[in-house]
């Protein structure tokens, strides 16, 4: 295996690891937030209303994650653009 493919393999491995950690953290946060928002009085089982709320909450959280990501990147790119024009 030449050094280039070794490098690529390492990068791939690092990305997989960081994505896994990412996903794990995301699920943790979704659990916390959606439990808090959707299940004010925990009973011994989830009502269908609570289930619907949790599903909607999860979808919204992931959409929020994407929106934050997009906004963050846009702002960073703006900064980089500004810096490269300043002398």
């Amino acid at each position, binding site marked *: 295996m030449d050094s280039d493919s070794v490098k690529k393999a390492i990068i791939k491995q690092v990305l997989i690891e960081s994505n896994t950690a990412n996903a794990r953290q995301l699920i943790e946060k979704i659990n916390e937030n959606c439990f808090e928002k959707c299940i004010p009085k925990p009973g011994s089982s989830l009502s269908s209303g609570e289930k619907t709320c949790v599903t909607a909450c999860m979808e919204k959280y992931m959409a*929020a994650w994407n929106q934050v990501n997009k906004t963050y990147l846009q702002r960073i790119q703006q900064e980089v653009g500004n810096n490269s024009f300043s002398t």
Partner: protein
Amino acid sequence: MDGGLTQAESRELDARIQKRQVKEFMNVFGNLVDNCFTSCVDDFTSKALSGRENGCLSRCVLKSMTTQTRLGERFGELNAAMTAEMQQKMR
């Protein structure tokens, strides 16, 4: 040879520092989403974010970033002032 790091040790240190920085950034990002979600999203009768919620999230992110920058600057200012004061006292 003095008590410095060998090249291999130096590389290892750099790799560890970078890993930690990435982890830390992911933490910051996760908390950002958490906070903005809590502040901006309350209506779970639909599965999609409304335009209002999207806008709120955007503004929340930008405000957080600006705040962080300002906090960093302010911290630097205070640090510099403290250092200057200490140097004064040592004269």
